[in-house]
């Protein structure tokens, strides 16, 4: 890559934190470095990733409304986790997380278990107990807030 070809595709995905350092060649072919605010290929891949996360969350909200899964699935996915990962954050077995994703077991959870989840998932116990919380979330807005990406 030549220095003048260092991509300058700033899609605002970096929250103005920093530009990236790139290695590129100057006029006589020697290597030097330059800064890039972003690159189309990366930006597309990132946006698509968040887009897919949003789609999955919208589907989960429907499932929660139907009553086929518990709100835990939504909170978990919103934190980009899978049962195994959530289990290791909370410090319990994966099968217990899977059980808690079923409404029947979710509703039986005590305050102690709920607060463990709440801490790791960045929500309040009250929201977890409120059956209308997940259906009331504007998924698109929430994912946009979380990622800074238009989805």
């Amino acid at each position, binding site marked *: *890559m030549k220095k003048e070809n260092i991509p300058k595709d700033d899609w605002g995905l970096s929250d103005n934190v920093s530009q990236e350092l790139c290695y590129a060649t100057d006029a006589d072919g020697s290597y030097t470095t330059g800064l890039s605010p972003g690159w189309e290929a990366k930006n597309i891949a*990132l946006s698509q*990733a968040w887009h897919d996360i949003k789609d999955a969350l919208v589907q989960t909200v429907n499932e929660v409304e139907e009553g086929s899964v518990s709100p835990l699935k939504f909170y978990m996915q919103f934190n980009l986790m899978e049962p195994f990962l959530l289990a290791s954050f909370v410090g319990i077995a994966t099968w217990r997380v899977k059980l808690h994703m079923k409404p029947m077991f979710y509703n039986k959870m005590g305050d102690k278990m709920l607060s463990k989840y709440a801490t790791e998932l960045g929500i309040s116990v009250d929201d977890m107990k409120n059956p209308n919380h997940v259906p009331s979330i504007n998924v698109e807005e929430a994912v946009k807030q*979380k*990622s800074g990406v238009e989805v």
Partner: protein
Amino acid sequence: MIIDFKHNQSAHCENGVISNLLKHHNVHLSEPMIFGIGSGLFMGFFPFLKLNGIPIATFRTSPGMIFQRATKQLGIKIRKAKYRKPKRAMDALDRALDQGIPVGLQIGVYHLTYFPRALRFHFNMHNIVVYGKKNGLYQISDPVLENTTELSYNELVTVRYSKGPFAPNGKMYYPTDIPSSFDIQPAIRKGISKTCKDMLDIPVPMLGHTGYKYVAKRMRNWPDKLGERQASMWLGQFIRMMEEIGTGGAGFRFIFSAFLQEASNELNEPWLKDVSAEMTESGDRLREFALHASRICKNRATQDVGYSELADILVEVSDREKAIFTKLKALGK
């Protein structure tokens, strides 16, 4: 207290941390030099190891290897420690800082408050240097950022104890014993020769230069096997592995090319500059690949470049890198 530590931005966190830590101890090696001596370049595709149900691809050696190899080649001793209890991990960090030692840490980026929000995934192999504490805030040199930053005690505990694959478990490290003089030439030769072995000699089709062909062969069938939508998700993740986690497939090729130029001067082997130029071309082809692939993802088909054209690029890169490393092999002899 704050240690007088010079922050230099790098393209990749692991190289950057090593390079910065060594510079603090008056060993001046550039990021590409560390990457080359540490034999960082690689290619691998793991159909059985999956992330979100999609196979993992990598364009570099496994995390931590560059560090291990580079310090070994240079004869530098490193103190490494992991801690079961966060309190002990933080106390150990404080003690090292009190002694005036800048400390490298492995962390997860999901809870990393200063990181761009769009990049906060559960990725546990990020590396930073802590070089002091002021008003209760830890002073952080994150090598992929232009400037230094700060984290509170609790923020630092959270990222040091992130969970999931490659969980850091509070890992910290710093060089303890640095030889007063280096023989850089044998280290460079060994670094190159190890990279050649990794890229040419592993008798597994998914690893080394054959890895590209392995993916290419499968990629041609993705649209038929998986359907358009699923295929574009697989391709999307492939680019993210390539470009977002770390420095990028092409990015690593450019760092390696920069290394070959430096090596050419150090070893007085002018022909390495030509090989460097060839490696640059290989990187450029990978950039083209990523760009075409991302456009396919965006428009979900309806492109003049399709999956089989993408696969052709990978096959070409495979042949190019085979030729490059076959030439480089001569150095090791």
